[in-house]
């Protein structure tokens, strides 16, 4: 890019007085004001700083030179001799190493001198393919950052920087918008107060993922995102910053009036490689014994007098619900589920025994996402403003699922006086959802349980759809006992369309996020900011199960939860700058922060079912409803902090920070904790300026500690008041034992980093090595129930995380019309549980179905899956040699053998951007290498008889499913207890038990994904009519997300899919397939 010389405008001449007031303005190349720029004399003391609109006034001696500098811009010297006004245009400093980084409390610093790791990407970069949740847009773009997202509509995104540090607490990064914390609670049915223990939704017991609260952030309003990775960078934010900070800087009002319109439409379809493939040779059935008159067992239910016809007939085993039944044979006519549906054209008719023509994939539909936004901004000498509205409407790939989002924003600044600026910002978000995806083993509402675990392959889902829509009844394939008068009910599973259209949830959340602030430039060197900010939301969620669903009347219900969250922050912040000597500069910071959190919720449900159909109210309860469950908690943290930065000749800098927090949630005698950070950086390039191939170079090291307090109400026991039993009162102890001896948690971290660039900044590297120890963690650890409790709060453990993160950028080709940029991020984190609490060797993080647990075990990485495995002989799985189970695997009785580690070996992302004239093509490949995921879907599918591996021919050329004495069965690889190779043929049949142990179903969770791809056409200015045109820009983009799952090892599912964000990962049950989406986006700037 050509460099522009500064513009010097002389508008008059005046030479009478000794000094005059010289007004001026500092602008960037585009003409936008540069606030905070330093204007000082080259040869004498004194100087000023520009205000928000870039203006300044300085007492001019009418001669000499002014030095104008601003972060991110190349410094300028201006001769002011004879000038009465001054307009200076600064040129943006070149490339990444000279960027401005917004650090804690919104303090801008040159990345050049930053002594800790911080990576910045632009809002446009994060939102390249129009994500609804900005966290998802960070995947693969920042080193050290692990993003895990699931395939549920509006689902939460796990955002973890440099590995999990807390055993059971929050490991999510803190989100901060323009200096103000923005709540990012992962809201799931977990937070449903009716659930006991720490997890139900995220351990696969059913429930919903309502998303992480940071998804409210409006992607269109983001200027930059800076990821502060280590504690040294974030320590000023207090205890919550131990997990790193995602700092978001929103767009600012620019001069003039600017309008940006954005409109996009995206369509998505399930990626079939992440969905089940069912065997299609055998239909419904189990090991059933059916007393046919002939004494033979056909696998069908014999009915002597079917439909009163006087003749016998065979019906499907509708209750199986498994597919170990008779082989398909189109010449065989069987009365199937549809024969019992009076509205069906096949009512009372036997139909060919064949695999369902429309398998479970038929249930999934095209997802549609529509996104429209308008942003308006402007600025003048007195102030600036910004106004925006964004609406997103997502229709999921499951029937009857919609999430809509409305984001309103207004912010403004106004210069009350020369040195006093007022600002305010108000954001309102309104989310509305209907039919979020039910997760986990919730057979009533998550159809994937049937699709993937226990289904009948003869079911045609198109017919199920038609059956439901004929009369909106629960015409299920899973009749309880279809030939009896009372048996036309759903046994375990509803018609999936009934579940989708009758048993849906809905929720809405209104959120306000805003602040008012006064900024006072007290003197040339002192700035004071006072700010009050509020983040507050109310959520209403209701769930229903209609009368007519499985489970009888008591299976119907209505439940509602009203909850609210509120956080208020009071900040007072003074910042100062002193030029101590000509080479030594000191920046100081002093502040206080008071944070007050308030949470409350009330949950109520009907009891024993509903009375009036379709009336969803608590009053419509079959029995007297239980008392509602009410929760209330608060937390107050008073913080005091200070910081100083000493810079020597712009190439050495030393930082120190200190903070003291007093938290209401700790025992009152031990509720204060201090933490501090020291960091330094050295721009060694300063001494190597004559090395031609080197463009920049910096070393940085730091050390910091961050403390953390306890969750609210964990220091004292609270009893539960249960619903009265007649006139008796029932109180009970909590199942989690409180602990009044808790001490604050602490994370100590060290980091060293190198930033270097070569070849005129065409190639650059930013790398860090870090090491953290998180000690005295406050954990509600699961304990032996013989203690009388299920959990107890303890200070436990020391987790170590260490890793390497690398960001590499390069521009292999750059010509006038064509350029190719590469951006690569690579992260390798290793963590290890060094110790737990007295005598404890293991903490169970989650217990799952299938006797699988997720653990933190001393000496091992955080997140070990334990379960059952084979009995090994000489390293080979052992099969039984004799008895009824001869030829089948021996499975170890204990279920605490490690079968997997959920942590990846490394993660990486590579973005390639090609620009040719007005076109730009960009794609991101996102890689995760290693880590484990357990699939309950596959584990149960072997019992469900759904797997293609259980059909076909065996080594003898006979059907595997035939009984062993008829030549069927297979020889399982392994050895007999005497160590000899197994030669015994055994059954593949396993309708109630499993042939393989759990360890077989712990898969490598690696993946390579073409995560994002975009092709954008920037309409050239010439076409628009040049710089004077009312239309300033038109971008047309073709966007794709998750287009191609290039590689994975987990069969029939997306290895990344999870129940929700949080510490519980590495387990799937009823998983949702990946949605591949392709969209079109139009952006207009006026």
């Amino acid at each position: 890019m050509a460099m522009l010389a500064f513009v010097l405008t002389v508008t008059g001449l005046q030479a009478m007085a000794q000094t005059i007031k010289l007004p001026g303005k500092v602008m960037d190349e585009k003409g936008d004001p540069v606030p905070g720029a330093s204007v000082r004399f080259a040869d004498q003391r004194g100087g000023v700083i520009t205000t928000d609109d870039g203006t300044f006034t300085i007492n001019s001696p009418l001669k000499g030179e002014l030095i104008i500098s601003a972060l991110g811009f190349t410094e300028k010297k201006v001769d002011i001799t004879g000038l009465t006004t001054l307009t200076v245009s600064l040129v943006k400093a070149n490339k990444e190493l000279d960027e401005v980084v917004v650090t804690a409390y919104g303090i801008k610093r040159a990345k050049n001198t930053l002594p800790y790791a911080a990576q910045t990407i632009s809002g446009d970069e994060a939102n390249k393919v129009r994500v609804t949740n900005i966290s998802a847009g960070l995947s693969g773009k920042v080193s050290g950052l692990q993003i895990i997202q699931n395939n549920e509509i509006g689902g939460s995104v796990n955002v973890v920087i440099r590995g999990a540090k807390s055993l059971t607490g929050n490991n999510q990064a803190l989100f901060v918008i323009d200096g103000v914390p923005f709540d990012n609670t992962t809201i799931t049915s977990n937070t449903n107060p009716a659930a006991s223990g720490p997890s139900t939704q995220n351990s696969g017991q059913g429930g919903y993922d309502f998303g992480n609260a940071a998804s409210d952030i409006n992607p269109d309003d983001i200027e930059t995102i800076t990821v502060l990775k280590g504690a040294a960078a974030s320590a000023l934010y207090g205890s919550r910053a131990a997990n790193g900070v995602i700092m978001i800087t929103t767009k600012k009002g620019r001069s003039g009036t600017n309008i940006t319109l954005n409109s996009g439409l995206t369509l998505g379809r399930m990626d079939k490689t992440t969905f089940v493939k069912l065997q299609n040779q055998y239909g419904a059935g189990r090991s059933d014994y059916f007393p046919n008159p002939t004494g033979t067992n056909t696998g069908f239910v014999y009915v002597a007098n079917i439909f009163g016809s006087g003749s016998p007939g065979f019906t499907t085993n509708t209750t199986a619900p498994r597919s170990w039944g008779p082989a398909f044979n189109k010449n065989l006519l069987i009365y199937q589920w549809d024969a019992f549906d009076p509205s069906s054209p096949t009512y009372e008719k036997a139909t060919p025994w064949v695999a369902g023509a429309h398998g479970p994939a038929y249930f999934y539909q095209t997802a549609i996402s529509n996104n429209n936004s308008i942003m308006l901004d402007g600025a003048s000498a007195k102030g600036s403003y910004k106004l925006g509205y964004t609406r997103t409407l997502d229709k999921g790939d499951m029937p009857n699922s919609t999430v809509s989002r409305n984001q309103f924003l207004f912010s403004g600044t106004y210069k009350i006086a020369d040195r006093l600026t007022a600002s305010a910002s108000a954001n309102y978000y309104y989310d509305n959802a209907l039919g979020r995806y039910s997760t986990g083993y919730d057979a009533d509402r998550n159809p994937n349980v049937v699709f993937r675990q226990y289904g009948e392959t003869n079911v045609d889902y198109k017919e199920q759809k038609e059956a439901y829509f004929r009369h909106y009844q629960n015409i299920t394939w899973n009749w309880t006992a279809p030939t009896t008068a009372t048996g036309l009910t759903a046994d375990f599973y509803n018609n999936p369309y009934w579940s989708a259209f009758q048993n849906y949830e809905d929720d809405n959340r209104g959120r306000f996020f805003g602040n008012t602030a006064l900024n006072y430039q007290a003197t040339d060197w002192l700035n004071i900011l006072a700010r009050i900010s509020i983040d507050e939301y109310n959520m209403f969620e209701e769930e229903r199960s209609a009368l007519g669903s499985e489970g009888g009347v008591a299976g119907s219900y209505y439940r509602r939860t009203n909850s609210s969250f509120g956080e208020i922050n009071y900040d007072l912040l003074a910042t100062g700058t002193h030029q101590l000597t000509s080479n030594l500069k000191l920046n100081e910071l002093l502040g206080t922060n008071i944070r007050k959190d308030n949470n409350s919720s009330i949950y109520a449900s009907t009891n024993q079912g509903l009375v009036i159909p379709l009336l969803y109210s608590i009053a419509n309860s079959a029995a007297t409803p239980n008392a509602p469950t009410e929760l209330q908690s608060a937390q107050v943290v008073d913080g005091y902090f200070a910081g100083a930065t000493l810079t020597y000749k712009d190439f050495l800098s030393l930082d120190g920070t200190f903070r003291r927090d007093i938290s209401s949630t700790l025992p009152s005698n031990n509720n204060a904790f201090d933490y501090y950070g020291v960091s330094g950086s050295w721009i060694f390039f300063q001494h190597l300026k004559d090395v031609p191939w080197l463009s920049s170079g910096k070393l940085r090291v730091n050390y910091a500690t961050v403390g953390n307090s306890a969750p609210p109400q964990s220091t004292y026991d609270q009893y539960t008041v249960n619903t009265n039993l007649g006139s008796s009162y029932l109180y009970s102890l909590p199942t989690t034992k409180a602990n009044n001896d808790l001490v604050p948690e602490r994370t100590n971290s060290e980091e060293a980093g190198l930033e270097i660039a070569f070849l005129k900044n065409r190639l650059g590297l930013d790398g860090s090595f870090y090491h953290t120890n998180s000690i005295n963690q406050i954990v509600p650890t699961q304990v032996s129930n013989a203690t009388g409790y299920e959990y107890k709060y303890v200070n436990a453990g020391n987790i170590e995380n260490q890793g390497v993160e690398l960001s590499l950028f390069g521009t292999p080709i750059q010509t006038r019309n064509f350029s190719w940029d590469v951006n690569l991020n690579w992260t390798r984190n290793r963590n290890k549980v060094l110790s737990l609490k007295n005598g404890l060797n293991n903490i169970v993080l989650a217990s799952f179905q299938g006797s699988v647990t997720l653990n933190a075990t001393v000496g091992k990485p955080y997140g070990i899956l334990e379960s059952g495995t084979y009995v090994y002989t000489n390293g080979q799985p052992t099969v039984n040699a004799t008895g009824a189970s001869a030829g089948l695997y021996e499975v170890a009785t204990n279920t605490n053998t490690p079968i997997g580690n959920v942590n990846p070996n490394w993660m990486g992302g590579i973005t390639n951007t090609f620009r040719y004239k007005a076109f730009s093509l960009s794609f991101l490949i996102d890689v995760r290498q290693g880590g484990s995921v357990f699939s309950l879907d596959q584990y149960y599918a072997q019992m469900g008889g759904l797997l293609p591996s259980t059909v076909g021919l065996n080594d003898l050329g006979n059907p595997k499913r035939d009984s062993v004495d008829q030549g069927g069965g297979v020889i399982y690889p392994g050895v007999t207890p005497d160590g000899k190779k197994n030669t015994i043929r055994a059954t593949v049949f396993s309708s109630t038990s499993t042939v393989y142990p759990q360890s077989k179903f712990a898969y490598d969770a690696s993946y390579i994904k073409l995560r994002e791809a975009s092709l954008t056409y920037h309409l050239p200015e010439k076409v628009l009519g040049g710089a004077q045109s009312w239309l300033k820009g038109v971008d047309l983009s073709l966007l794709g997300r998750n287009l191609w799952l290039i590689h994975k090892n987990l069969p029939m599912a997306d290895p990344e899919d999870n129940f929700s964000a949080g510490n519980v990962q590495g387990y799937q049950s009823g998983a949702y397939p990946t949605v591949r989406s392709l969209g079109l986006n139009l952006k207009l700037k006026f």
Partner: protein
Amino acid sequence: MKKIFLFILPMSLLLGACTKDISSYNGNSKAPTTVPAGPLFTYAEYWLNYSLADCSAYDNIFRHIVEYWSQATNEDVAQYNFNLYNVPDNWWQRLYVNVLSNLHASDSILSQDVTDLPATVANERAIIDVLEVYTFNTLVNSFGNVPYSQALNPNILTPVFDDAKTIQADLLTRLTTDISKMTSANASFTSTQDLLYGGNVANWIALANSLKIQIAMTLADVDNTTAQTVMEASNSAAFQSTATDAVWSSFTTIYYDPIYYSLVLDGRTDYLACQTLMDTLIAYNDPRLPTFFGTNTSGQYVGSPIGLQEASTGAFSKPGAIYYTATCPYPFMDYMAMEFYRAEAIERGYNVPGTAEQHYDTAIALSIRYYGGTNAQVQAYLAQPSVAYSTAGGGTWTWRQKIGFQKWLALYGRGMDSYTELRRFDWPTMVPPVGAISGFPYRMTYPATTVSEQVLNPVNYAQAAAAIGGDNVSTKLYWDVN
């Protein structure tokens, strides 16, 4: 410069105001931090009742082990596949957490009670202890060695497992102490606090004595001296009539019977009469049959083989009509069972009044009448040579077989009690379930899934498993020597 204070002053005032008593923000206005002792006791009683009465395949599978009921859909549990649905974990968790922990908490609140009369508190604490003894005894009879001396202490997160024999000896000692502390003239829990006896101390004394006999007689095959001593000492104070029977009637239309929940509210049709019991009832012309079970859709009494999955549940008998009510009472401890102990004691040569036959007849009669039978039906049943004490089993049965057989029938609906007696008498012999994954289970394995002792308390678990002879269902408890 002065203007700075315009900002600093209000902020520091604010800060000052907030730091005064910051801990007070940690409260919860929606949950109590102190409660009276009574409702904790009530809660524990409710859960003990609920756990024993439950028939869920996930929580209480004793009805299937003793082959009263079969399971048409979750036949896995009838095939002894308990871990599939976390049965040992749930049983362990309910007894330790829901029952024992709340009993313990209730007692410790009472121990600091200065407002009630000491005599009342003494009665209440003794009553609590009796139920603690009952519950620990149930745990021992379910698992063998269990945490006892270090149990119920949240400061010991990995409690040791105590020797089963030592525990049961201590339980007997505790009951002796409890009985000595109870005085029927003084008050105890109120009628709404005590779901079992409404605070009637005399009844609790009778129950404590009966429980002593129950525990001691369980040990008779390995510790005849204790059994005899306890039986002879406590017999006269134990249940003498149905007037003191301990029958839970806690269930209401809100706190419904767990069986009612499964059969009616949950609409489960897969709990069937087991062929083993059904065929016996039919063969012995048992008047209890129509109370125990209903008929199939064709009006016949048909039992389903244990362990078999049945697609056509309509072809089999379902549980009787009494289980289709929300408020079905649960016979917890009663005179009937005591009469069987007396019959057994006489056969063992203990000094107990009456004859074995008298007590045997009385026990059978009590059971038939409990289930709505008439005196005529009692007489007709007892008159059958297959039932009459002298001729039962064709005259070849030992007293163990005769008493064991009739006690198995009489304990219908009380799965855990029946399971213990079945292991003691080794009679009648259970039919191996179709597809059984093991031989007859002589105990439940320790929790291994959701509240896994293997994971949470591994060292003590391993020691206990070794001490009892392996954590397997085939390991017999120390008192199960035959």
